[in-house]
Each structure stands twice: as structure tokens, then as C-alpha cells.
């Protein structure tokens, strides 16, 4: 143990401390320490229950953060960050670390719009999932994490130019609310916040859960949910070596309640690999949806120095009912380089424009574009198929046009929309009009599968959904799901806060029932 007395009561297991096969007993075992699992674990341990939180990834402290985007992804993302969908080929990521995606996301917290939750409530028989019902849960999470709008002094030129462009066009815009305290605008959210300003789950909810007495098993991969009849009795799997994933020891956690929060792409795989659990509705792994993202780069006459400022500090919800959200963006330059056209000296010259450039993106609420998650024959990675609906291609092209419009209104002289088959550079808004008038196939877009949903969807009717409003599986008395897989549709905005609000509600329901 450390010499630090604060550490004495903490029950955190790391890879170096495992010595052989073991079994744990718990009231509740939670699988996955991302925003969903961390909130549930904290909520239940606060109620005095014995909670074991199991996470496949290791804790990653700042000393292990990689500045380089490629190496960072190789270490913190499943499949090295190179996971893609089939059908419409689109990269999509899932983190593997204590704290899950919150360690490497940009901390955006937005409440799902009222019209979205009204639709969920009406179309999916979810009477208690209205905004009014969820607001107390949003509030509780918001207060715990200190969610607040990004202050002006850490916005940086990249974010403020977006605001100026929106103002010039009369479009609404606002500073993005984030789970951050004391941000210095380093723009390093995607590779881990060195300032420790981002309240990622590992240093917030998981930390508090540990302090309250939870047991946290890291580097522990759950491979099977143990079930008999209408009840589950725990989970089992292997301790795995960090980064390589090589199995070392076997473990088992016996529990009265099992909560799966492994993420929208991993939870259905776990259910499928556990003998097809909770699938009387036939909906496990079905209905997969994303917020596909597109981005454009604008170059300005003066330096923007885009590395300064909050990673994503400003957004516009002007077109949210139309089906897309606009926002600012910064990431390691290696990620942006993917979007630039050209090769050789032309490509290199474009890289040279980076200090004068800003990248803004749009995420589409593409409910027409549906896919599925399937377990692979070997391994635990999912096989994802998904197809971008032609009408959603049009939606994303319109979003790109709006981004170009804002760029030019903010003073950009060049916009690179990154659409194959269209001009690589656009210098006037008239030239950019082709973005909304020209039909292109999905394969012409450079897409990013930002958020994933619906693979274990919530529905009031047990024949049409996997879980009920409390997150409990229709087929089991004591099996719950608490990740974005339970969303019945795209939330239209960044999903983390909504996922945590639903998880907060789930924790309360479990505590009442247990």
C-alpha cells in the first residue's frame, strides 16, 4: 500500500495487484465505469449497498497521457481507435479506460431538448421520460459535476469566431456547458486533461464511489453474465493485461443485481455472448443509431491559433429541429489531417494553413439511418453494420453548407468542406451553394460516428424494447442496462448528460427495489 493514509480504505484493484483467480460478493455489480456505470455505482454505494464496479481498462493518470493523437487512440480506444462500421464505412470510437469515454471526450453536457423527450415518451410508451420527469436527475448530476457554460476567457479565437459568424447571420449560439472546473483552454480534452480540470468519471463519480466504500476492479473484462430462469446471479471474466488485453486470471462476481453499462456497442455483445440474454423482443443489438458528424475547415486572413481555447466551446442549436447541431472543434492535428484533401506538397501547404484555420463540425440526428451490433465469432469486439440513409446524406450536406455560411460570415476566405467529388476549396458562399444543391453518395462524405445509441432500446412494450423506463430488462427481474444503448432514438444533442440522468434514475429504482 502507499504511505498515504487517505489511500488505506480505498478498494481499487489494479493489474499489478492481482495474484490469481478470485471471487467477489456484492449487492450490485456494475459493468463499465463510463458515465452511465459510474453514476449508477456511486448512487448505489451512497445508499449503503455493497457495489463492485468492473472496468476492462486501467486507470490512466496524466503521466500516461499521450499528446500524440495516434498513440493516444492506440492506447485509450478499443481497436486502437480504428473501429469502423460496415455498410456505410464510418469510423467510430469507444474508450477503454477507467472513466470510459469521459476521459477522452470534450466534456459537452447538453440536456436533451423537450421535443425529443416528448417524442420518446409518445412513440415508445415512456411516460416518465419527459423533460419534466428527467430535470431533477439532470440537476443532480449537474450539481455534482459542476456543469456550467464555458467561460469567455478560455474560449479562444476558434470558438469566438463561430459565435461572431452566428451573430452576423442572426443564428442563435451559446457557450457549451461542460463538466469542467478550472479549465485553462489547453484544447487537450481528446488526449486526456492534464490540468485535471475535466471532471471525467475516474476523478469524480468513481473517486467518490471508492471513498464511499465501492470496490473497483480495473483491467477486468466481463465475458459472461450468469443467468438462470428470470434472474441473473453475477458476472465472470478475465483479468486482462493493460493495452494488450491478454487474459491472465479468472474472476467472478456474485451479485443480487447486475447493471450493464459497457456502452452501446459492447453491452449487446455481452448479452449475445452470454447465450442471447434478454432478447425475447429480438431487439438486442438492433436499431443501432449514431450522430454521424461532418466537419469543415475555414481559413482566415489572420492567425486563429486554434490550439488555444476549450476543445468545444461554442454551439448553435438553431437547426436542432431541422435535424443537426453545429459546434466548434479542436483535436490533435493528426485527426484533422484526415479531412484535408491532397497529397504531396499541396497537402503539406494545407497543413501549413493550420494556424490560420478553425474546424467546426455538425452532428446529425439521423434516425432514418439504422444498423446493428453483432458479436464476432472470436473476441469481444463488436461487428457493426450501419447505413446512412440518402435523406440523411442531404441533411449532413445542408449542415456543411450552414458551416460554410458561418465561416464566411466570420471572415474566412477559404472553406474546405471535405466532400469527395466537389471542389476541394470554396472561396465564396455562392460557390458553397453546391453543398446543398448537389446530390452526393454517402461515400463522398468524411464521416465520424460520434455517439452511438439504441442497441438495447428502452420501450414500454416488452415486445418492442429490451429495457423498461427504469433500465431494467423486460426479461429479467434483476438485470439492468445503464448506457446510451437504452436511448430509443438519437437525442439530437451530445448524449452524456442524458445518459447520466437516466443512470441516476436507474440507481434510485434499483435502491428502492433491492
Amino acid at each position, binding site marked *: 500500500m502507499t504511505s498515504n493514509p487517505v489511500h488505506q480504505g480505498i478498494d481499487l484493484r489494479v493489474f499489478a495487484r492481482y495474484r490469481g483467480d478470485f471471487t467477489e460478493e456484492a449487492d450490485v455489480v456494475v459493468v463499465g465505469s463510463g458515465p452511465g456505470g459510474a453514476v449508477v455505482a456511486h448512487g448505489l454505494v451512497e445508499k449503503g449497498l455493497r457495489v463492485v464496479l468492473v472496468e476492462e481498462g486501467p486507470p490512466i493518470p496524466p503521466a*500516461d497521457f499521450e499528446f500524440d493523437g495516434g498513440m493516444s487512440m492506440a492506447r485509450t480506444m478499443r481497436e486502437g481507435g480504428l473501429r469502423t462500421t460496415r455498410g456505410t464505412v464510418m469510423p467510430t470510437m469507444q474508450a477503454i479506460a477507467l472513466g470510459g469515454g469521459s476521459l477522452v471526450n470534450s466534456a459537452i453536457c447538453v440536456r436533451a431538448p423537450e421535443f425529443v423527450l416528448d417524442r420518446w415518451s409518445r412513440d415508445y410508451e415512456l411516460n416518465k421520460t419527459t423533460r419534466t420527469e428527467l430535470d431533477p436527475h439532470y440537476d443532480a448530476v449537474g450539481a455534482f459535476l459542476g456543469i456550467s457554460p464555458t467561460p469567455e476567457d478560455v474560449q479562444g479565437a476558434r470558438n469566438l469566431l463561430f459565435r461572431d459568424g452566428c451573430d452576423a447571420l442572426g443564428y442563435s449560439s451559446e457557450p457549451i456547458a461542460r463538466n469542467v472546473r478550472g479549465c485553462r483552454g489547453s484544447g487537450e480534452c481528446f488526449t486526456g486533461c492534464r490540468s*485535471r480540470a475535466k471532471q471525467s468519471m475516474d476523478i469524480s463519480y468513481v473517486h467518490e464511489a471508492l471513498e464511499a466504500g465501492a470496490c473497483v476492479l480495473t483491467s477486468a473484462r466481463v465475458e459472461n453474465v450468469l443467468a438462470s430462469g428470470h434472474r441473473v446471479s453475477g458476472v465472470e471474466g478475465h483479468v486482462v493485461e493493460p493495452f494488450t488485453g491478454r487474459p491472465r486470471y479468472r474472476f467472478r462476481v456474485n451479485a443480487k443485481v447486475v447493471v450493464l453499462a459497457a456502452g452501446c456497442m459492447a453491452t449487446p455483445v455481452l448479452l449475445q455472448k452470454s447465450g442471447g440474454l434478454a432478447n425475447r423482443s429480438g431487439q438486442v443489438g438492433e436499431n443501432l443509431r449514431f450522430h454521424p458528424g461532418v466537419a469543415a475547415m475555414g481559413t482566415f486572413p489572420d492567425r486563429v491559433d486554434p490550439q488555444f481555447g476549450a476543445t468545444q466551446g461554442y454551439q448553435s442549436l438553431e437547426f436542432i429541429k431541422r435535424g443537426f447541431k453545429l459546434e466548434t472543434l479542436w483535436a490533435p492535428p493528426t485527426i484533422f489531417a484526415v479531412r484535408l484533401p491532397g497529397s504531396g506538397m499541396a497537402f503539406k501547404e494545407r497543413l501549413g494553413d493550420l494556424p490560420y484555420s478553425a474546424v467546426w463540425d455538425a452532428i446529425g440526428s439521423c434516425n432514418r439511418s439504422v444498423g446493428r451490433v453483432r458479436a464476432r465469432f472470436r473476441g469481444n469486439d463488436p461487428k457493426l453494420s450501419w447505413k446512412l440513409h440518402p435523406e440523411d446524406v442531404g441533411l449532413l450536406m445542408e449542415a456543411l453548407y450552414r458551416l460554410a455560411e458561418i465561416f464566411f460570415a466570420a471572415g474566412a476566405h477559404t472553406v474546405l468542406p471535405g466532400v469527395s467529388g466537389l471542389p476541394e476549396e470554396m472561396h465564396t458562399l455562392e460557390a458553397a451553394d453546391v453543398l446543398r444543391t448537389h446530390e452526393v453518395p454517402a461515400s463522398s462524405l468524411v464521416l465520424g460516428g460520434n455517439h452511438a445509441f439504441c442497441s438495447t432500446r428502452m420501450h414500454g412494450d416488452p415486445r418492442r424494447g429490451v429495457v423498461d423506463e427504469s433500465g431494467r430488462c423486460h426479461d429479467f427481474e434483476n438485470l439492468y442496462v445503464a448506457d446510451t444503448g437504452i436511448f430509443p432514438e438519437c437525442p439530437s444533442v451530445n448524449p452524456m448528460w442524458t445518459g447520466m440522468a437516466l443512470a441516476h434514475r436507474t440507481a434510485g429504482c434499483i435502491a428502492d427495489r433491492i
Partner: protein
Amino acid sequence: MTGLFVAALIAWLFTRALLGYPKPTTHYRRLLRGEAAFVEAACGVMFPAGGAIPLAGTEVGAAPYLDRMMDASKPRIRALMHSLFFLVEHASLVFRGPGRGGRRRFTRLDPEQQLGVLRGWETSSFFARRLVFVSLRSLLAMAYLQHPSVLRELGIAPMAIDTSVCEADLWMPRVGADPSTIPWSVSDVNTPRDDVEPLNLDSPLHPDYAEDSS
């Protein structure tokens, strides 16, 4: 006679495809000799010397970088990367590159021909070919843009930040290390406050990216 012809053909293909790569000066854990040569050649063509960023792609250590990345990747991803390098290196044996002597593997083509081959992948009407190009260029861009000189030149090198120590850091060891190695104690905790100064152009660079680091 047919057997002799087939044997000669195989020998010719073997020579063209697999032999004649220079012996690498570095030991690679994952990259094969031919792959290292391909990566260096492709990075040199993708990032020629001069222009806005003086450093050439051949000067950034692309092969060692991608070797480290492959080593950090799972076997399935490594297999995909091996396939990608093999495909682009040898596709010009079947679909010839531009100009005279274009039916040679990528690393044996002239730089202009190599650029022509890459442009062929980039501008192809087949999505799969464009996808191969984007994948390759992404890896090469990662290799190029990790170099401190390149990042300094672009003005986007990481800044020095006095990393705060939060309460969670008291129980969080380095990956793979034992908790007994955690260097912090309660007196080190200095959770970030809201009144800290934002970073700006005058902020010092991280020591690994400062001028005298490379």
C-alpha cells in the same frame, strides 16, 4: 515446359515483390524490412522537403513511429496495417504507375511516379481505393505530425502545464504499476481553481517539444 514457365514466373514475382529492400538501421518489433522501406518512401513523397514546414517526411522517423503504434495495437489492427502497406507497395506491379517503368513496386518507382500512384488512389472513382488512400495518409500524417519540429513550426506544440494533483491521483498508479509507486500525498493535492490563467502564445512549451528537445 509449363512447370518451368510457372517456376520462372514465381521466381520473377518473388524477386520483384519481396527482395532487394535495404537493411534497416533500426530494429523494428513489428514492421518488416520492406514495410519500413515503404513507409519511409511514402512519407517522403507525402511530405516533400520545403514549403511551409521545412522538415521532409523522410526526416521524422515515420517507420519507428508506426512500428511503435503497431506494437501498441491489437493483432487484428496490426494485420490490417500490414495488409495496407503490402497493398499499396505492390499494387503498381499489377496496375502500373505513371510513366516509363511504372510496373514496379512502389519503393522502386521514382518520386514523381510514387506521387502519381498516390494521386491515383486518392482520386479514384472507387470508394474502396479512396478509403485505402485516406487510411494510408492518416497513418503517414500521424507519423509526420508527431515530430516536435513540425508541431513547433505549425505553432501547435503542446504547452507546459503544471499538472494538478487531484484527490483521485492519490490512488491512481501509472498503468501497470503498483499503487506503492504513487508519488503523491495529501499535501500535494491542488485541484484546479476557476481563477487560473488561460494558456496563450506566451506560455512555455512542454519540455519534450521545446526547441532544444529534438
